[in-house]
Structures are given as C-alpha cells and as structure tokens.
C-alpha cells in the first residue's frame, strides 16, 4: 500500500519530490560542471568601464550604432542583441528639440531634419548580421503582428506541445527592419535558478528561436529544423549541429562555470584594443554587465551571472553537441526503481538481521544515486534518484518498524507462553500437592500407629503421590505411587489414579484385587498411555497383619525397633497400565509392635549428585540403619530427607522425592503399655 502510494506520489511529482529532484540535478552539475571547450561565442559587455567612459545606460543609440560598427570592423559572424529598443530614442535630435523648453524655431527645424538616432542605429545594423532581442509575454498594443523570423523546418504533424505565448515586445520598426533576424531573450522565470531555457517558442503563432540559437544560426548561415525524437523529445538541427530538447521547446542547460574569458569590454572594442581573434568570425552577443543592472541570473552551479552569459552557454551547448534531456519515461523508470527496491526490501528485510537490512537499504540508495550519475554523465539523461531513494528509505523504515513490532509481538508471545508454562507447572503442582492428605491433620491421634509422609516436588513436577485412609475401624490403607510422566498430564493422571485407588480400596477385597480393579478403571481414562508404579498396603491396626501388593514399585524397607533395615522382595507385578489385564498378587506378613516401614519413590533412590551417581537403595538402607531405635516416623523421614539432600548437594533435583514412614505401635490391648 505504502509502496503504491509512494510510486503514485513520485509519478505525480509532489512539490517536495520535485524540489529534491532539482536539488539533485543541481548537485550533478556542481559535481561535474561543463568545461568550456568551444570559443564560438564572445560577449561584448557594456560594463562598468564602458559606462564610466560613455555615461549611464541607456546610451544614445548613436553610441550603440558606433559600437556595432566597431564590432563589425573586427569581422564578427553575427551579433545578437541581449538588449532591445521598444521605444524611439529620446536622445534623437527631434526628440531633444521637443523636450527643451526654449529652442529657437530654426534650430528646432534643423534638428528635426537630422536623422533620428534610431535611423542611425538602423543604418549601422544593416549588413552586420544582427539578431535583435525580443521578449515574449502578454500581448502588447505596440506589437500587434507576430515577430518576423526565418522559417523553421517542422514535421508535417507539427509539434503541438511547444510553449505558445500570445504577445511580445520587440523593437521600433525602423531598427527592426534593418536587422537580419530576431531571437527570444527569455531565460526562464525571474528569481529562479536557470535550469531550463526556451530554445524555440511559438509567439503569436510564429515559431521563434531563442537569441542564442538564432545568433548561432545566423553566424553559421544555416537552417533550423525540428523533428520528433524518442521519449517524447524533439531533435533540433542547426546545420551540422544537433541537440535534443524537451517536448515544450525548452532545453536543460549543461552549465559551465562563469568565465571572464567569454567577455570583452565594450570600451576596449570602441577604442580598438581587442585581440581581433576574439571577434573575428565569431558569434557575438551584446549585453550589459554592470552593477545595478537587473538582468542577473542564478545558475545551478550557484553562481550569479549576467543573463547574457546564459545565452552564450546555450550557444556553446548547441555548438559543442552537449545536451541534457529528461525523457517522458524518466518518471516511469524512477517509479519502477522504487517499486523494485521497495518490493525487494519487503521480501528480504524480514529474513535479514537489522544490520544486514540497513546495509541493503543503504546499498540501494547508493545504487540509485550511482545510476542517476551514470545516466547524467554517460547518457546525458536526467534521472532522479532522490524520489526512489526517499521512497526506498520510507519503505525500509516502515518494514523495519513492522519487523520490530513483529519481533516485539513474538517476544511478548514468548513471555506469555513462559508465563503460561509456569502457570501450567504451578497448576499441576497445586493439583498434585492439594490432593495429598496431611498426616497430622487427617488421622488424629490413634495410639496404634504413627505415620509421616513427604513429597518434595521437582522443578518440572513428576507425578508422585501418597495417600492413606481407614477403610474400616481396624484397617489402614496406604499407598505410594509414581506416574511415568511430567507436567499437567502426569498431574491429572495422578489425580485419576488416586481417586480410582481410593474407590477400589473402599469397595473392599485384598490389596491385589484393589490394584487389579483400579487398573481396569484407570486404563479407561489414559489417553497419554502413562503408567504408574504403586506400592499399596492394608495394615490391620489391631493384629499388625500387613497385606500388600507391589505394581512395579521400588520395594520398601522395614525395620524392627532393634533390628536392621530389611528390604521387601520385588515380587508383585508391572506398573499399573503396562499390562492392562494383569492380575496383581497379594502378599502378607505380620509386623512386630514398634516395627516400621519406609516406602519411597525412585525420586529418592535415583536422586543424582553432581557427579551423576545415584543415591541408590544401598545408601537408603544405610540411612535407615542409623536411625535411633525409638525414632518417630517424623524423625525417620527427616533423616532420609536430609541424607538425600546432603547427597544431591548443588545438583538439580530431577524427580519428585516421596517418602512415607509408617510405624505400628501395637494392638489396642498393647497400646496402654506403649510409651
């Protein structure tokens, strides 16, 4: 969208783009000013020295006639006037007579008989190949007829785009009649840098060449011919010389710097002090170069030069075959370059680093500027890199902003995701921990047994749990389990396992039957194909008879009050949900009063230290051996927990660590004798 808008803006030449374009074109001219190689034209300047000698401008036309005569003596090929004479000279004898308040009638009469100054100038002009200056513009009642100019050869279909003006200011008829031709003194709008000057214009319907063109044509005694050229341009042929101009009859001037060598002083001409080579056979322009004279112009090189020098440069451009054009397709090429650069940026930028992207954008700007310079230097064509470069940078900026905000969005997403993950982990942990009964609160003080349990969750939550509850007056059901998985799925599965086990246990039967029944239920709601190791027991608190079943779980240790730890056998079955129709066997033994068991998950035995060694069931056995003979379940649990923590050291705990310690103190009858 932006790209399209910019392309259109470029094609439409917004004032800003236009201003920048002109600045760039001026930059080209300043970087590579045209060297003056031809000396076809010389300017005779009515300068400060001449005015000091002959008085203020305008001079009487007799003086101008004298000057023209001198120039002619030097053998000039033509003389172009960058001055004009629209009114009769007020210094003519008859005019003076009419002006003076008291003049003897005789004197007035004889003055009136003298030739007018205009006639004197006309006589001088005749035969010196003079091109008079005229100015095109609004209609002027003094000059109702179109200016007389030699015919310019044109294609049959005409050149309708050439500028057309409705009027002009010319010269008094007597002078005009004596001149060989007329040329336009127009040099572009006032108070603007002179970049484009009219070469031909239609004035009151007549096609008229500019003063420079016409002065050269007269000097060369050649014909002038216009023909259409590629890119909507016009070829201008003058004898052997040719150039290409814009469709409106103007030409972009290739400027050289101000050069005093172009000028000779009118005073030196009058006093015959000029090197004859400077005038002999040359086109001569007669102009004014003095302080206070209005006709000064600014060139693209930033110089302030007499207007007549612009005409001289026109002649030099034309004579030297130097041209500079801006074809109709230039704007299209610029829009195309912008579209190409913009698209490339839009496609490539998101795949690049910010630094690479910046390099690419600057490379494009350099390439555009370089292409513009090459077109200027080698193809005499004005292509504008400023518009495409600004457009490219704008596209770059907006894509960068887009990319940055995309990156920002992704960062935010990652942060949110991390927060969600943390939230999920927290939720999983809350589910897991919230389901665990509190040994102290849940069971009150039953003198027949003591129980302690602990679950230390790992960073990425495993699915351990423990549970215990009375299934009837006499029997305590307890379970320690470990789900094979992590995170929310494991936590949810653990919740399902826990409730199914409880449901199965409360329905009665042997522990093996409870596991078998629970497995059948759990298997129905296990989409993740998780499994769970379970050690479950049913302790008759009166008799001390323990019934238990092991589903792939770490066998627990038991210890008599004054004995050593003894590990349960590994008989039993696979974890729940590994072999879904497995029937779990029940085993049994009778505990002695004061005997306790310690059930752990592999988070404890497989807790790893920094060198990658496991805590192992042997260290667990040693830990349990060092427990005092009358230690409470809480003390046993603390002992194991501390030993594991000390062993792990700075290493990260990889899996949940679960411990359950259960001590049977003796039957109801024995209870009072218990401490």
């Amino acid at each position, binding site marked *: 969208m932006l790209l399209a808008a910019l392309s259109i803006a470029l094609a439409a030449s917004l004032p800003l783009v236009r201003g920048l374009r002109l600045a760039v074109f001026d930059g080209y001219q300043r970087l590579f000013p045209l060297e003056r190689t031809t000396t076809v034209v010389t300017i005779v300047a009515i300068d400060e020295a001449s005015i000091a000698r002959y008085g203020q401008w305008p001079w009487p036309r007799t003086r101008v006639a004298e000057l023209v005569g001198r120039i002619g003596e030097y053998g000039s090929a033509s003389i172009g006037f960058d001055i004009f004479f629209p009114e009769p000279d007020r210094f003519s004898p008859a005019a003076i007579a009419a002006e003076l308040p008291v003049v003897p009638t005789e004197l007035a009469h004889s003055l009136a008989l003298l030739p007018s100054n205009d006639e004197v100038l006309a006589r001088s002009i005749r035969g010196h190949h003079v091109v008079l200056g005229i100015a095109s513009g609004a209609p002027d009642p003094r000059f109702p007829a179109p200016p007389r100019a030699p015919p310019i050869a044109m294609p049959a279909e005409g050149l309708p785009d050439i500028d057309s003006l409705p009027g002009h200011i010319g010269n008094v008829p007597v002078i005009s009649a004596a001149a060989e031709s007329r040329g336009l003194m127009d040099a572009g709008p006032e108070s603007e840098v002179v970049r484009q000057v009219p070469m031909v214009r239609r004035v009151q319907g007549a096609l008229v060449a500019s003063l420079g063109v016409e002065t050269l044509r007269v000097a060369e005694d050649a014909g002038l011919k216009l023909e259409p050229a590629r890119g909507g341009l016009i070829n201008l042929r003058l004898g052997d010389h040719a150039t290409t101009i814009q469709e409106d009859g103007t030409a972009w001037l290739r400027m050289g710097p101000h050069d005093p060598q172009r000028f000779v002083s009118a005073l030196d001409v009058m006093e015959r002090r000029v090197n004859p080579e400077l005038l002999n056979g040359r086109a001569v322009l007669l102009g004014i170069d003095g302080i206070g004279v209005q006709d000064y112009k600014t060139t693209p090189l930033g110089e302030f030069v007499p207007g007549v020098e612009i005409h001289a440069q026109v002649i030099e451009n034309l004579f030297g075959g130097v041209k500079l054009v801006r074809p109709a397709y230039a704007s299209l090429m610029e829009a195309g370059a912008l579209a190409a650069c913009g698209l490339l940026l839009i496609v490539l930028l998101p795949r690049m680093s910010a630094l690479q992207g910046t390099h690419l954008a600057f490379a494009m700007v350099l390439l555009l500027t370089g292409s513009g310079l090459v077109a200027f230097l080698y193809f005499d064509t004005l292509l504008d890199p400023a518009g495409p470069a600004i457009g490219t940078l704008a596209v770059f900026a907006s894509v960068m902003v887009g990319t940055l905000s995309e990156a920002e969005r992704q960062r935010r997403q990652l942060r949110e995701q991390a927060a969600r993950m943390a939230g999920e982990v927290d939720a999983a942990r809350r589910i897991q921990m919230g389901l665990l009964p509190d040994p102290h609160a849940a069971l009150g003080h039953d003198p027949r047994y003591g129980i302690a349990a602990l679950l230390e969750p790992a960073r990425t939550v495993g699915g351990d749990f423990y549970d215990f509850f009375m299934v009837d007056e006499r029997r305590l059901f307890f379970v320690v389990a*470990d789900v*094979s*998985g*992590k995170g929310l799925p494991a936590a949810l599965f653990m919740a399902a396992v826990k409730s199914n086990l409880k449901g199965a246990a409360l329905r009665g039967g042997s522990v093996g039957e409870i596991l078998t029944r629970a497995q059948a239920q759990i298997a129905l709601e296990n989409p993740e*194909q*998780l*499994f769970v*190791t379970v050690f479950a027991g049913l302790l008759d608190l009166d008799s001390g008879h323990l019934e238990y079943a092991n589903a*792939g*779980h*770490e*066998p627990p240790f038991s210890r008599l009050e004054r004995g050593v730890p003894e590990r349960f056998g*590994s008989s*039993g*079955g*696979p*974890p729940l949900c*590994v*072999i879904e129709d*497995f029937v779990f066997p029940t085993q049994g033994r009778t505990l002695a009063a004061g005997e306790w068991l310690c059930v752990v998950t*592999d988070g404890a035995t*497989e807790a790893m230290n920094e060198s990658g060694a*496991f805590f192992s069931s042997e260290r667990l056995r040693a830990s349990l051996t060092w427990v005092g003979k009358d230690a409470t379940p809480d003390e046993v649990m603390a002992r194991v927990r501390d030993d594991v923590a000390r062993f792990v050291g700075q290493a990260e705990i*990889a*899996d949940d660590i679960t411990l359950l310690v259960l001590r049977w103190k003796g039957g109801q009858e024995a209870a009072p004798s218990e401490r």
Partner: protein
Amino acid sequence: MNVSSRRYSTAVVLQVSGRLDQDTCDAFRGQLMGHVDSAAREAGAVVLDLSALEYVSSAGLRCFMLASRQAKAQHGRIFVAQLQPMVAEIFQISHFNLVFQVFPTVREALGAVSAEAAAAYEKA
C-alpha cells in the same frame, strides 16, 4: 544415549548405550519405532542389546512399553538381551520381563528370532 544397529538376516540388533531418561527417551523412541515398523513389515524382529545401557528411568521404561504395544499391534516382535545389573534390577522391580522376553545374550535372543538370524550372527 547412543543407538547403533546391525542386521542379522531378518533380525535387527539395536545396541543402546548410555542412559535412557527423560532427556534422551524421545530421540530413542523415534529410532526404535522406525526399526519396529520396518521389522514388522518384513516379519522380522528387533533385538535390543542393552549390554551398554547404564540406566533406564521410568520415562525410558515408557518408551519400551510403547514400542512393545506398537510391535504387538503390527504383529512384530521385540526381544531384549544382555541386561547390566542395574538395568536388570529395574526390569525385575518393574516386571518388564513380562513385557519383553529377556535373554541373557544376543545370541540366544537371535536364536529365538530364527535359526537364520542366529546363524548369521555366528558367521559375523
């Protein structure tokens, strides 16, 4: 964890070395499933040579279980051979010898696959 495979007739022996735990089990599972799949298609068998497996966690056991289920579904066979003491204990505790047929040596496992596989192993 590293897996290298060798073919003996219709049997593929996968030697698994290192530790098989939460961090490595996904990669292992991908490879194992691929072999189980192709073995099932040509009525062959996969023999897991665990002589260099140091440790298997419950996540690793789950991998074995899923492979066994896939093999069963595709009528393929997986045998396990040459357990190290630690892994043997884990298999014993978790009763995974009920999931897989476990053999003391690769040779014996290949004998259970086919006479050709065992012969190919003898020759190599």
